[in-house]
């Protein structure tokens, strides 16, 4: 049933966010540390495991697939609710700091990607 897939997704997310909050508490920061990432890992493990040990019914999978497909529309809604005014109207310092941080980070991607691949070949 579709709800099994949705529920499975919910369990993964709730457990992940819970662990992320605990992790944040443990290291003493006021933030969730990787909660969504942990949830994603759990789901990836489950979906990779399922090929061998157990299989999800197609209907169950479609409960997860629906939310995966809703990702882009949700991101569009997220874009439409951003505080764009605050981003562009609070003066040059904020804009320059933001732009420079993005430019520097973009520039680092090819560097790190090459490093990572080279590292993999050495092993």
């Amino acid at each position, binding site marked *: 049933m579709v709800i099994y897939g949705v529920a499975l997704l919910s369990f993964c997310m709730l457990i992940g966010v819970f662990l992320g909050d605990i992790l944040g508490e443990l290291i003493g920061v*006021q933030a969730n540390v990787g909660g969504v990432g942990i949830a994603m890992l759990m789901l990836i493990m489950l979906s990779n495991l399922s090929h061998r040990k157990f299989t999800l019914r197609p209907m169950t999978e479609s409960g997860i697939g629906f939310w995966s497909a809703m990702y882009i529309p949700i991101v569009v809604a997220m874009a439409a609710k951003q505080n764009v005014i605050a981003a562009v109207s609070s003066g040059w310092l*904020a804009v320059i700091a933001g732009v420079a941080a993005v430019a520097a980070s973009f520039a680092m991607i090819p560097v790190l990607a090459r490093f990572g691949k080279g590292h993999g070949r050495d092993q």
Partner: protein
Amino acid sequence: MGVISDTFTAVLTKNSLVTAFAFVGILVWVSYRISDKLTRGHIHGSAIAITLGLALAYVGGVTGGGDKGIADVGLLGGVGIMGGAMFRDFAIVATAFGADLDALKKAGFVGAFSIVIGVVLSFIVGAAVAVAFGYTDAVSISTIGAGAATYIVGPVTGTALGAGSDVIALSIAAGLTKSVLVMVGTPIVASRIGLNNPHSALIYGGLMGTTSGVAGGLAATDPKLVPYGAMTATFYTGVGCLLAPSVLFLCVSALV
């Protein structure tokens, strides 16, 4: 006529989340038409949809006067729920279904490494801009540097260090600028920086760190890369909140 339009408005307001689904559906449809007809598919439909969303958020901020973009405009309150953190994270987790575990394992180390590099790099850049604008106290410099990481790391750091509210507001604005720019800029630079495989997407997520920026940027570039970038990005804010008010602040204090 008055009765009909009043009733219609009431229905849309009462069912705000459903209204948001319809509204975003139209927005995405229009965007894909523009992509097809005007750019002949050169610019991805979702990139146009996200840019239109941001433009609407600006319009909404001007007319609604709030801080939630178009979601502050009467009938469209549901857009705030649909685009809120709960649904966003739920959909991000769903994209992980069927992702390649081996790609994750291979990039595990460099992915984790990229998060730390990303936080430190953005912090240094933001702090340097703060210094260039005449800030001389370690607390303000660190708060603005932290804001250049994400708009959550900024206020968390500022609050922890006791920065002024004007500086905290600046740090949030710096983080917002970053997130908007990552959404719009990613599809433009993607081919030049080699962002076309799970490996570089993991690194991209770790370096950029802004969950909404990465989510939007990858959606507009190649939705298949979303789970990899989102995975590392979700650790970034936590690492930033850990490093900025502690190690990085101490480094700044030692320097000024």
